[in-house]
């Protein structure tokens, strides 16, 4: 089948999409957007998170056809040109990035958190990021990054 939706502000179509395919597959394999990572295919790790109509979701659990006509925003669509989003900047700066494979998903989820909650508490951050596994950092610096990004965002 053919699937058409908007990705990072641009309308994209994919043809010959198998009906059981995930949105993640379409993004990575058909649209050349591998920023969202494929690490578990069962919604356990959060590496594939994207916004679907403004709601952060695991792209591996969205059937491609369910994205028809909708708005998708991926990690590739967070920076404005050369200017990184506050969350991206803070992750790089705080040492919240190591191997980098969980990073895109975490950034999408953190981006959503600080858009909804101006100054999230540590408990809120831990809870909000509980579905984003990271095997490298020990999580602490991710917490720092979210706090920093929230602070900077609130200041602007």
């Amino acid at each position, binding site marked *: 089948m053919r699937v058409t939706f908007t990705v990072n502000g641009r309308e994209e179509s994919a043809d010959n999409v198998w009906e*059981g395919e995930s949105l993640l597959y379409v993004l990575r394999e058909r649209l050349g957007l591998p920023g969202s990572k494929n690490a578990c295919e069962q919604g356990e790790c*959060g590496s594939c998170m994207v916004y679907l109509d403004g709601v952060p*979701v695991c792209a*591996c659990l969205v059937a491609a*056809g369910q994205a028809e006509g909708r708005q998708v925003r991926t990690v590739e669509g967070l920076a404005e040109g050369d200017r990184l989003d506050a969350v991206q900047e803070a992750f790089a700066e705080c040492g919240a990035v190591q191997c980098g494979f969980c990073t895109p998903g975490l950034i999408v989820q953190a981006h959503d958190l600080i858009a909804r909650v101006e100054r999230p508490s540590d408990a809120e951050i831990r809870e909000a990021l*509980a*579905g984003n596994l990271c095997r490298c950092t020990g999580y602490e610096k991710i917490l720092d990054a979210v706090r920093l990004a929230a602070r900077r965002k609130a200041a602007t």
Partner: protein
Amino acid sequence: MDFLRPTTWEEALAAKADRPEAVPIQGGTDVMVELNFDVRRPAALLDLGQVAELRAWGMVGGFCRVGAGVPYTTIIEELGGPLPGLAQASRTVGSPQIRNRGSVGGNLGAASPAGDSHPPLLAADAVVEVESRDRGVRMVPATAFYLGVKRSALEPDELIRAVHVRPATGPQYFSKVGTRNAMVIAVCSFAIALHPGERRVGTGLGSAAPTPRRAYEAEELLARELDWQAPLDPALLRRFGELCAAAAAPIDDVRGTAAYRVHAIGVMARRTLTWAWNDHLGRRAA
């Protein structure tokens, strides 16, 4: 494979009637895993995401009617007042991103004994509204809905439309033990709902038997012996815990042993009744 995209409930029912083998998909949190892992390849997917009314809730005939596609996030944000037990359970489902997509309807459809919404639905006497094009609506009490591991009373041509739950008239609590603080399937879980008007207490056990179930004898004990004006009798509390534990028929699996589950059900039963009772007495005093 076909991808069916009804935009109204009538279209959805028609599609399911014509293609009973079609697998309904909403949040995708169960169905997509099976497709991704290639464990099943249905002839058709029936996407219910376009049927807007499934994602709405409202008051109907004294019941809170929650559309099958209402995501857990909405239940947490909007239904904590009327359905506190279900809202608490929803808060423990997976992760925020799963709660953004997953729904009670999906939980019922999958009928996993570990589903988090089942115990509070049982404790609060929920009724499941299912419908087929040809045979119309059936109202199935939650107690009759779960038939076995991942088997439910849903017929092949039926879809789950909503659950009906009476707004809480007393305190409700949900408790769950797991190895992690989040992202964890329950080792076992327990829900309690006080119905002070009827001098009755409802219970629900999760991950403690092939299906979610109530602890009837424990409920009967309280109906018989609970003094609704007085502090909780420790001996009664203990017997309540024992009868709840006795209602469990768990297995050993990778998440925990049967013996542990029986023990934990007893602990959670005592704990949630104590919390609920404190609230109950507090409300009376206030």
